């Protein structure tokens, strides 16, 4: 069974690495990390993601641009704000995003 692909975007490199590592610890998920808008857009064009997590430091203008580009390419993609920086909130955030109302 294929893993759920999750794109994590975060300006803080250390937190980005932590979040990606934690997600990849789950056998059902696979995370790709991106620190810049360009990296994020390139990743999104290359792979089909179910979920995008927006981490810390993303400017509002960037967030608006990313959301618009991603939804235009794939209206079904789920984009949520990640809070906590790779802490105990991560798993619940992902479960709720994947299973809850969108």
């Amino acid at each position, binding site marked *: 069974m294929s893993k759920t692909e999750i794109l994590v975007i975060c300006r803080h490199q250390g937190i980005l690495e*932590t979040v990606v590592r934690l997600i990849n610890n789950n056998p059902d998920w696979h995370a790709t990390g991106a620190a810049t808008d360009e990296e994020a857009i390139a990743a999104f064009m290359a792979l089909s993601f179910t979920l995008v997590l927006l981490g*810390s430091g*993303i400017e509002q203008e960037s967030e608006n641009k990313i959301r618009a580009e991603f939804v235009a390419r794939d209206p079904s993609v789920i984009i949520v*704000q990640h809070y906590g*920086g790779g802490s105990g*909130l991560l798993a*619940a955030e992902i479960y709720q995003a994947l299973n809850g109302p969108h």
Partner: protein
Amino acid sequence: MAQTILHKAETRGHANHGWLNSYHSFSFANYYNPDRMHFGALRVLNDDTVDAGKGFGTHPHDNMEIISIPLEGDLEHKDSMNNVAVIKNGDIQAMSAGTGIYHSEYNKDREHRVKFLQIWVYPDKKNVEPRYDQITLNLEDRHNKLQQILSPNPDDEGVWIHQNAWFHLGKFDKGVSAEYDIKAKGNGVYVFVLTGEVRVNDQLLNTRDGYGIWDTDKFTITAETDAEFLLMEVPMIQ
């Protein structure tokens, strides 16, 4: 008419890692309950006990307001802003993680455990500059009255955070009552009983029970026994 929700102590998530025994009022780490995700902007209420000499190694946080209240023993905090502090029983610490911060929390005492509450609140502004604030509280200021320990205002009593939230502690003798007026329209209050029994309006609460109340302007809290409790007023964000 007031809306309420009751979270009995025994319904909390529980994780015992040996050195850390933690009860989660809301989903956290491996405890996931879609019906227990948050109470308004209150996202985490962890009731932690850490063994002597043990603690949480350096780990990151961002975009959360993190409040630590030791109930027994002391906690050493170190962070990437070069802050090193001991949060003692009787203190409260607030940390705005903002754009990102690393910190560790250790029980440096070699003989005694530390018990503390770790409380996380969603900020009202993302990506703030990380900062922290810590004060020592006067125990007498909560004896038979409500002691404000946290607010949105740096110039007000207690510590401050980036959210329209107010926290109060109370240590009431049996029979003492107080009325709590909600400070901001649209806010609710999560009551957490530290010890003893209290009644919030008509609802009896026991030790470590949680009770959320919203869509009201005020409520009455009465100590049915000698009791200590924490009131957390937060915006009722969805």
